[in-house]
């Protein structure tokens, strides 16, 4: 039995109280119809004649690679961009949405990929922001707090209105975002990759909440590129590629493989094939490693592990449980506490700098590719020799040897299939996937014996991700010891021989990749160790 939108008259959304879509319209009718939406930016058509219908009471997924035009489409819907062509009908009425405030006034809510919260403000202040107060010019935070509590109770979204947002965990922040939209009485809710930062358990909880919101008669637009989530949550799916709609389907009619194919436009191997290898000798040994974080807290607490030749050790965990600090310590970018030891091929490198570690065979694909992996303003060629530009190979008598650099760069661009107009193109103008390929090419061309790969495919399109996975497996075959730090559990499970799960600076378990189940690792990621997974 669908529940109507609460009849509550208070701040900004009060003027809409009384509209009860579930009473006036059948659930088959569309809350939203976007027709022929076209939006061009200099050099690229982001949306090309795109149609999108969303019904009352459904979760409608927009699926597509980065740059397929999903974000542009919903930004148009939320008034952040104006379409060049096309029309939008909301509840059957034509509408022009000039700004986010107009979208909100039309009861459109948006949960952005990056939380749109002000960390230093309380939950109530964040929710109240932009709404009309009953006690103008003063705020009415007590009224807002009471309403938040009501919403929390009604939708099973536990939040404390008086807490500052910066004190909240990621999952709680997500709930605040949803409360924000519900407080504004959103009837059409856009969720832009809402699961990106959640643990598998939190994702399950979120899906229960989203499903309930749809059952109440709201229309939900769910944006994702995680195929399994799409198959679980969606009622209908619209697939975008290069700014065009390439298909409409439902989970019952399709499969993950088919969806991937529609997204990319060719057959994709979702799970990489991986030959069985004999165990090699330990190439990287970490013993009693303790690392302090940025705020003098213990980020990594006395962990030990080793990675063998021909092995990929996956490190799973929710962001912020010490993975970043671990990677930086292995790369030599962050100091470690006394008693810690890091050895490469048996040689203690704990006190060595990054250069010395690289000389001992360490390759590093950093998590923040544009901050730590490449210099955006430099050309592709310059980034490709960034580590070795001072070596005899590329420098003679203190002058850069452009001939050798050019030759080397052209070879790598070719070999790693980097899509770039040329080797002298600024790296910043490449797509995320191609920038990652440039970094991968640079690191692998040094023939590393130990490869530290952090979030190697985050934000990268499926094609490039597939390629990167293939190269990582190739490295494994030739005996490289690889540490794969990733928040993408499918990636870890697909590639890793063993999976170490990090929680609050500890490695809570190391399990064999083949025997590991998603549920088991999901629980470990949430810090549940004692409990045996129920299946």
């Amino acid at each position, binding site marked *: 039995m669908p529940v109507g939108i609460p009849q509550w008259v208070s701040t900004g959304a009060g003027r809409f109280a009384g509209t009860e879509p579930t009473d006036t319209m059948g659930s088959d009718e569309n809350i939203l119809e976007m027709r022929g939406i076209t939006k061009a930016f200099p050099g690229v058509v982001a949306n090309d004649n795109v149609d999108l219908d969303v019904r009352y009471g459904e979760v409608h997924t927009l699926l597509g690679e980065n740059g397929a035009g999903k974000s542009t489409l919903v930004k148009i819907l939320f008034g952040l961009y104006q379409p060049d062509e096309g029309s939008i009908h909301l509840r059957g009425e034509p509408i022009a949405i000039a700004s986010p405030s107009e*979208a909100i006034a039309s009861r459109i809510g948006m949960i952005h990929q990056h939380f749109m919260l*002000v960390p230093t403000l309380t939950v109530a202040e964040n929710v109240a922001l932009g709404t009309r107060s009953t006690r103008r010019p003063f705020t009415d935070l007590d009224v807002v707090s009471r309403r938040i509590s009501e919403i929390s109770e009604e939708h099973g979204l536990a939040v404390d209105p008086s807490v500052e947002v910066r004190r909240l965990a990621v999952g709680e922040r997500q709930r605040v975002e949803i409360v924000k939209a519900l407080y504004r009485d959103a009837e059409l809710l856009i969720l832009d990759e809402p699961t990106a930062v959640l643990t598998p358990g939190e994702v399950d909880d979120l899906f229960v909440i989203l499903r309930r919101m749809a059952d109440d008669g709201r229309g939900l637009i769910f944006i994702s590129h995680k195929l399994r989530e799409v198959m679980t949550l969606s009622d209908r799916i619209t697939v975008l590629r290069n700014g065009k709609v390439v298909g409409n389907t439902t989970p019952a009619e399709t499969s993950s493989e088919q969806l991937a194919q529609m997204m990319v436009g060719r057959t994709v191997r979702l799970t990489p094939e991986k030959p069985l290898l004999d165990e090699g000798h330990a190439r990287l040994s970490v013993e009693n490693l303790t690392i302090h974080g940025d705020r003098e807290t213990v980020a990594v607490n006395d962990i030990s592990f080793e990675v063998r030749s021909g092995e990929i050790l996956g490190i799973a965990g929710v962001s912020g449980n010490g993975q970043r600090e671990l990677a930086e310590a292995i790369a030599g970018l962050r100091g470690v506490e006394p008693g810690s030891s890091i050895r490469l091929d048996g040689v203690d490198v704990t006190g060595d700098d990054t250069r010395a570690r690289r000389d001992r065979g360490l390759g590093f694909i950093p998590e923040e590719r544009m901050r730590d992996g490449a210099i955006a303003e430099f050309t592709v060629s310059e980034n490709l020799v960034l580590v070795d530009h001072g070596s005899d190979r590329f420098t003679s008598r203190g002058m850069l040897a452009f001939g050798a650099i050019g030759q080397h760069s052209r070879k790598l661009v070719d070999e790693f299939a980097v899509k770039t107009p040329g080797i002298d193109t600024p790296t910043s103008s490449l797509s995320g996937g191609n920038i990652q390929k440039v970094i991968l090419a640079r690191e692998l061309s040094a023939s590393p014996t130990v490869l530290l790969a952090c979030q190697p495919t985050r934000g990268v399109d499926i094609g490039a991700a597939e390629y990167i996975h293939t190269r990582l497996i190739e490295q494994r075959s030739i005996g490289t010891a690889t540490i794969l730090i990733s928040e993408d559990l499918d990636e870890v499970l697909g590639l890793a021989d063993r999976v170490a799960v990090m929680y609050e600076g500890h490695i809570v378990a190391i399990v064999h990749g083949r025997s590991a189940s998603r549920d088991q690792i999901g629980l470990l990621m949430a810090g549940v160790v004692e409990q045996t997974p129920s299946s």
Partner: protein
Amino acid sequence: MGEFFTLSVLVATAASAIRLATPYLLASLGETVGQRSGVLNLGVDGVMLLSAFFSYWTVLETGNLWLAVFVGLAVGLVMGLLYGVITVFLKATQGISGIGIFIFGLGLSDLLFRRLVGTPKPVRRLPNVDIPILSDIPHLGAALFQRNLLTYLAFVLVPVTALLLTRTTFGLNIRSVGENPQAADSLGVSVERTRFVAILIGNSMAGLAGAALVLQLGIFQPNLTQGLGFIAVALVYFGAWRPIGVMGGALLYGLVNATVLHWKALGIIPVSDSDLANMAPAVLTILALIIVARRVHAPSALTKPFTRH
């Protein structure tokens, strides 16, 4: 040394401290509002100089002190419009634009002074106004409640500014655009408008500060402020972006200044060392900043122009 601790000297020092703190406090409170919205204005000193000159000139020509105060405020507002357009709408780099505003104010006030006045002539000063009953409190009354109206206003503006920032919807908008303008924008809060208004408020208060400075002294000369506006910006950091903290900083600064003045007058500091003693407030500020800056959180979006993407 014993001379200093006589009651009358202490009262006189406290009174001067409060008087000297007034322009700092007005300018810093205004700058606090601007910075909480994410806009750094390094041009405060220039705004103060221009306002001070026009206030002075108004008294010189009309003899009307309250018109002079109003003119100072208005000059601040006009400079705020200019700075707002440059930084908020044209999205120029705030640090450099602020220095531009400072040099503009310094140069223009100097030029106008030479053209319109020439040699410094003293004008009427702001009269002290006794607050009934309170001013009769022994010693304390003379120090605190026999001051001029702009001083009272400056201290009244401390809780008013605090209230504005923490208890009003507009204050919530200011704080949010200073911390996460994207979030504010996504909720329909106009980042541009909020910042623009915050700049207008801030510059108007800098204008008042300029008026207070010149009308307390009763005379203008080129570069009258001698960097006072820059100290006011530093006091915002010192006060951790809170009006009450800013007030503490302004009072401390006023007290050190007043003490140096009185000790010089009493001969405790020899004339030969007076230049050195003049540095005391600046040294103190730097030390305080080193200690304070480690602990407090500046508005995250401070100095960052906002563009949608």
